[in-house]
């Protein structure tokens, strides 16, 4: 498995509608929508979100690696969603993780950095 690299971006918790309309700035930003009110903008350096009480924090607490989907499926006990692009969330090899599935190609395996070593040992 490729090394899990630290991911950098902005984490935003805000009203869902405001988050829907958020304007992210940065290099090749990929927005992972963890929940209706919670998103991680990978590569984002700033964000405009129309919610004065939004929580916007620099985020370095996640790691990730691009993998062929087949390499990940072997470690799932749940079925991947069929729609693309999408974010799937669940246990990968027993470790809480997320999978960003773009329109085509490899999947981005994302996990909290606290799980990185264990995940790398299990998904080899």
């Amino acid at each position, binding site marked *: 498995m490729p090394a899990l690299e*630290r991911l950098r971006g902005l*984490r935003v*918790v*805000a009203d869902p509608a405001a988050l829907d309309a958020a304007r992210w700035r940065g290099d090749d930003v990929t927005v992972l929508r963890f929940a209706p*009110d*919670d998103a991680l903008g990978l590569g984002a350096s700033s964000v405009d979100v129309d919610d004065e*009480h*939004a*929580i916007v*924090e*620099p*985020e*370095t*607490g996640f790691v990730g690696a691009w993998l062929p989907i087949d390499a990940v499926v072997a470690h799932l006990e749940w079925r991947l969603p069929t729609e693309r692009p999408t974010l799937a969330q669940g246990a990968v*090899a*027993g*470790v*809480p993780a997320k999978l960003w599935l773009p329109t085509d190609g490899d999947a981005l395996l994302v996990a*909290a*950095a*606290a*799980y*990185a*070593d*264990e*995940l790398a*040992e*299990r998904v080899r």
Partner: protein
Amino acid sequence: MDGRLVAFEPSDSVAVAVVRAGEAPASGGTLCLAGDCGNCLAQVDGVAYVRTCQAAARPGLQVVRHPVLEMPPLPAVPALDITATPAARAIEVRRAAMDVAVIGGGASGIAAAAAAERAGKTVVVLDAAAGVEVVAIYAGPTVIARTPSGMLHVDAEEIVVATGAAEIQPVCPGSRLSGLVTARAAEALHAAGVGLGTAVAVGSPPVGVPANAVGGTLVRFEGDGGRVRAVVTADPLTGAETTTPADTVILGLGLAPRDVLARMAGALPLTVVGDAAEAMPLPPPPTEGIVCPCFGVTVEDLGGAWARGFTELELLKRSSRAGLGPCQGGACLPHVRAWIAARTGVVPEPFTARPASRQITIAEAAADTYVDVFRRTPLHDEHLALGARMDRFGGWWRPWHYGDAIAEYWAVREGVSIGDVSTLGKLVVSGPDVVELLERLYPCNVADIRPGRSRYALLLNERGHVMDDGMILRESDTRFVLSFTSGGAANAEMWLRDWIEVWGLRAHVLDRTMSLGAINVTGPLAKTLLMRAGLADPPRFLGHVHAHVAGVPCHVMRLSFTGEAAFELHHPVDRSVELWRALLDLGHDLGIRPHGLQALFGLRLEKGHVIVGMDTELDTTPRRLGMDWAVRMDKPWFIGRAALERTAKLPDHRRWVGFTMDGPAPTEGSPIWSGREIVGNVTGSWHSPLMGHAVMLGWLRRSPFPDLVEIDGREAVVSPTPFYDPEGHRARA
């Protein structure tokens, strides 16, 4: 076998090879050679309880017969390091998704499979005779099978059980002799060319096996040296007994449906076909002898259990253990049912079947499962490099000590020390209704906490029981940071989100636990160290500021869990190593050293600080902890208030208190005695290097609460807490 060479033919099972050699695979009993009984169990290649009739003989196989009267010994394994990462999985698991899983490869199973295939369905046949033993059926439905190459998990839309029928075992005196075989076993042995000597058949004779058939009712077997020499039968009309000499007695006593898997499936979509679906007559009720060969349960034992009131099949099973052994009722169930029916006039339904239906190893059971994942802080490798002994606590790997917990303790009490508290729960809450939210959630006042200040708080549930504790830190009018115990952050986040939704409040929540590292800088020289690191104006007690420390952006919180001045530095996880190393470098001449959990627990114990989850129970209230001061009953409403108000009027016989005692610290969890009665238990224990005696925290559960108790055989004194610096001068210094 047992250290001797045993020859075998290519198609032999271990059991057949052993019988061919003139021996018995176990200490006796009727061999079925079909995997239904426990009479051929032996240790094979180090694994005990293997059904040798289902294990193929091969060169080099090591077979050790089980002891006659005792359980086989557990395999010797080297001492385990429970703190080590578990070994990689050794048992492969294959998964398959099929429309139909047919269990059993006999005529009815093959017919069912063919019918399903004709209907265009995908089918798998799981046949024990081909080495694929189904051991469990779970909801899903999922069928779990053991195969020669590992475990097989089949997700099937439909399951067909075609497992056939098992032969009835004899229950009479002498049934544990060797030389007894069922009719089918005799056929198999004969077909394999195994000589049976003088063979006598009782009941339905085997097909094609030379044997002297004797009539009458089976009475007993006679033998010597553990081997059968004769069978005694009785004329059903006159009762006259006939003794017939025999080297082998072949028993055709009837069949019972092999339905354990069908019973295990419960309401799952499942069809039973063939003999497994047949309602077959029970054997005559047994009157004497061993009913359950696995555990040696006799007819007399059943009678004793019945006399004690265990007059239902499930109760009789639990009381006598008949049916709980390795064969899971394969041998005894028909007899026990018949025995009950003779007493009640009603044939009881077979007892519940649960996975696994056959013995499997722990490795097979655990195949394809993962141990709970334990998180690592960003400083994990730093701890290892410093020689820390790591242990799991609150869902995290944490340093227990760095080789000298006492030196770590003194570094905190007299100098400066750093500890990794990255594991603490850290939530950010923000919104116009956030004060209202927190006032409702916490039993302390929140609105009067000024920005830049903080307050310790308990978190209660509706029953007034302590769920967690931590700090409330106000950053602005509408934004707070909340801290929780290491194991409590996830629950706390759900708790907040649930109530926000229930109450319809406008507040956002973000769990930063795994995004922020945290280092606790504590000791009388902590402030000196932080000023060296660039913190020009450290906050005063219960204050907090955002500032750079050693160039790292930190949220600096002044509080104390150790009893000394302490500053928690919350910072981005990608900067933790940099900050940790900088603090160690800058504090080198101050004698800085890191402290682990062992020292931390001792330090907090001297201060009498509670650790929720370790000291508390599910129904611990603030009153029981002696922490009424953390609850403002003058607030009009908060979660748990009504329960606290109601129970405050009731006597309470539990208190969490301090104890002191000379000598070494007793084991945590030790019982607390008053006279001849256990009145509580120790939750925290530490021999204080500073005070020179043991200090403890623990529960008293009998009132009036005694002043003197006995712990670990020694007198202990109930003592007020904190044991150390009760006025809190050092923490505020």
